[in-house]
C-alpha cells in the first residue's frame, strides 16, 4: 500500500523523467543589461551571461513564494519595488515571524557591487547571495533540496529552466541554476538614469537653488564658500555608494566585544572589521527608511543628526566620520539634494514588477 502511495505523485514526478524536456525547443535569446549612459558597462560572470529566458525565469523565482517554507514569502517580501526594493521595516521578518537583526538593503544597481553582498559582504557574487536567504531560519527557512523538489514537480518551472539553461530533464533543476536565474534578473534592477539629479547631470533638467547648493556641499564643490557635507566619500556618484565597509559611529561600542552585531568582522574574522557595514546607495534614500544596518534611525532627519554629530567617537569609528558643520538652511539644502536622487522610473518599471500580478 505504501509503495503504491509513494509512487503516486502529481503525475509529473521527477524520478522517472529522464530526458522529459528534450522535446521543448532550446534557443535562448542573448540579452543586454540596460544601463544609464553615465554608468560603467556591467560585467557579469562568464558562466551566467544574460538571456531573455534566464531573466524571465529569475524574475518569476524572485516573486514566487515557492521559495519559502510555507509558501508565503519570497525575495519580494523584503525587496518591494515601490520601496526601492527594501521592505520599509527596521529589520526584516521571516516566515516564522522571527525578526532578523538587520534591515533589508535596496537591490537597485546591485549588479554593480563586486565588493561583497549583504551588509557584511559575506557573499561575493549575486549567484552566491541568492542561495542564502532560502535556508536562513530568519528568512525563508526551508532547504534547497525541498525547493529543488518543488521546482521539479511544478507544472511550469521545468519548461522555463529548459528554455533558460537547456536542461534535458527536470532532475537537472538545481539550486545553482535557480540562483543563476535570480542573479540575472537582479542585474536588471538598475537605475533608470532619470532621477532629477541624473537629468540635471545630463543637462536635461534644472536643480533649484537649494538642491544645487546641497549638491555642492554633498560633493564639496565649493570648498572655500560652503561647508563640506562629507557625503561623497562613501556615497559617491554615480551609484551613490562605494560599496566599501565602514564603522560610521552608529554603535556606541568602543571595544570589539561590545558590538552586538559584529558586521563585516563576523565574516572576515578580522577584529579590525568588527562593527563595519557596507555603505548602501543613497539613490532613492527618501524611500528606504528606517536607516542603518539595524534600522535604528527612523527617518532622514535622524540620519542628518547622526552624521552632523559625527556619531559615537571611538577608535573603531572610521576616519571619514567627522562632525559636520551645517547651519539649518544648509542642512535643508543637503536634504533637498538627496530628494533629487529619487528615481520614479525604476519604481514603475514593469519589467521589474511582480509577473504574477499582471
Amino acid at each position, binding site marked *: 500500500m505504501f509503495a503504491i502511495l509513494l509512487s503516486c505523485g502529481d503525475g509529473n514526478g521527477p524520478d522517472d523523467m529522464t530526458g522529459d524536456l528534450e522535446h521543448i525547443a532550446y534557443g535562448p535569446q542573448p540579452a543586454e543589461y540596460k544601463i544609464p*549612459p*553615465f*554608468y*560603467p*558597462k*556591467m*560585467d557579469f560572470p562568464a558562466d551566467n551571461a544574460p538571456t531573455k529566458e534566464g531573466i524571465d525565469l529569475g524574475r518569476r523565482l524572485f516573486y514566487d513564494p515557492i521559495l519559502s517554507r510555507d509558501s508565503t514569502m519570497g525575495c519580494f517580501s523584503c525587496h518591494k519595488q515601490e520601496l526601492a526594493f527594501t521592505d520599509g521595516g527596521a529589520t526584516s521578518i521571516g516566515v516564522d515571524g522571527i525578526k532578523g537583526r538587520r534591515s533589508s538593503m535596496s537591490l537597485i544597481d546591485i*549588479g*554593480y557591487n*563586486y565588493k561583497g553582498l549583504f551588509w557584511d559582504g559575506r557573499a561575493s557574487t549575486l549567484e552566491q547571495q541568492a542561495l542564502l536567504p532560502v535556508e536562513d531560519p530568519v528568512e525563508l527557512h526551508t532547504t534547497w533540496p525541498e525547493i529543488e523538489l518543488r521546482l521539479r514537480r511544478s507544472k511550469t518551472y521545468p519548461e522555463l529552466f529548459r528554455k533558460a539553461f537547456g536542461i534535458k530533464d527536470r532532475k537537472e533543476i538545481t539550486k545553482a541554476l535557480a540562483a543563476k536565474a535570480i542573479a540575472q534578473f537582479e542585474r536588471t534592477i538598475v537605475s533608470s538614469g532619470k532621477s532629477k539629479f541624473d537629468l540635471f547631470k545630463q543637462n536635461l533638467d534644472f536643480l533649484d537653488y537649494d538642491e544645487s547648493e546641497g549638491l555642492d556641499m554633498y*560633493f*564639496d*564643490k565649493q*570648498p*572655500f564658500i560652503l561647508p*563640506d557635507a562629507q557625503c*561623497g*566619500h562613501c556615497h*559617491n*556618484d*554615480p*551609484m551613490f*555608494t*562605494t*560599496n*566599501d565597509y565602514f564603522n560610521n559611529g552608529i554603535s556606541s561600542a568602543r571595544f570589539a566585544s561590545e558590538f552586538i552585531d559584529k558586521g563585516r568582522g563576523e565574516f572576515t574574522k*578580522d577584529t*579590525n572589521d568588527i562593527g563595519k557595514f557596507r555603505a548602501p546607495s543613497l539613490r532613492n534614500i527618501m524611500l528606504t527608511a528606517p536607516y542603518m544596518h539595524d534600522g535604528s534611525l527612523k527617518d532622514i532627519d535622524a540620519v542628518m543628526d547622526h552624521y552632523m554629530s559625527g556619531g559615537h*567617537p*571611538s*577608535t573603531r*569609528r*572610521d*576616519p*571619514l*566620520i*567627522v562632525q559636520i558643520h551645517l547651519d539649518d538652511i544648509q542642512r535643508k539644502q543637503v536634504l533637498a539634494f538627496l530628494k533629487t536622487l529619487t528615481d520614479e522610473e525604476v519604481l514603475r518599471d514593469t519589467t521589474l514588477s511582480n509577473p504574477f500580478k499582471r
Partner: protein
Amino acid sequence: MKNLIFLFFAVIFLITSCKKEEEPATADLKINLTLTYDGNPLVFNQNQSYGDDFIKMTRFAFFLTNMNLRQGQDSARLVDLSFVDFTTSSSTLAGATGGLVLKVPTVKTGTYSSIDFGIGLPKAVNATKPADYPSSHPLADAGYYWAGWNGYIFSKMEGKYDSSATGDFSNGYTFHTGLDENYKVVKLTSPIHVDGNKSDNVVHISLDVKKLFVMNGVQIDLEAVNQAHGPSNAEVIEALTSNYQSAFEIKN
C-alpha cells in the same frame, strides 16, 4: 628528372636554412611592494610613534602606472596600470612584511640601472571617467573618482591619531590625493637583474609612510591638518605627493 631532384633538394635546403630571428631571452619578474613606517613593516590599526603622539593607519591605496625598467636607451614596460591596496595585506605583521606582489611575465633579461613608475594617473587617463570602463575595472570604482575634481582620487591614506598620547584614537586623518599636477613619477636607481636562469627575479620596493607625512620640512600636525581632498588643502596634497620620491626605496 635530375633537374627536378636538384630543385627538390634546393628547396629543402632553403627551407631548413631559414631561421627565425631569435626572440630575446625573457624571464618572469616579481614586483614586491611593502609599506613601512620608519623602516619597519607597517601593520594597520597598530600604534606608530608620530613625534610625541601616535597614529594608526587604516587604509592606504593608490594607482600605480607606467612602470618601466631602464638601461640607457633600452627599457622594459612592466605595468600599465595597477590598483595597489594595502588595506587587507597590511592587517597582520606577516602580511605587512610580505607586502603585495605583482607578477610580470616575459621581461627581457639583462641588468637594468633604474625603475620608474607613476603614482596616480597620467593626464589622459585622469580625463576619463568610471563610465568609460567595464564595472570590474579598477577605474570604474566610484570610490576612486571625485566629482568635485572631475578626476580620479590617485591615492587614499587614512587612519587615526592620538594627539594626547592617552590612547584615545577617536580622531582621524584622511588624505586623498588627485589632480593632474599631483601625478608624480618616481625614479629609483639601483642595479636590477632579470636573469633567465633564475626562477625568482624579484624587485623589492618599499614605501615609508613616515616620510610622506612631512610638509615644509616638518611632520604634518594632524591636530591642525587632518583632512585633505580638495583645493582648500591643495598644499597638503602637493606636499604628500612630492614626498613620494624620497619615501620609495629599492630594497634589493
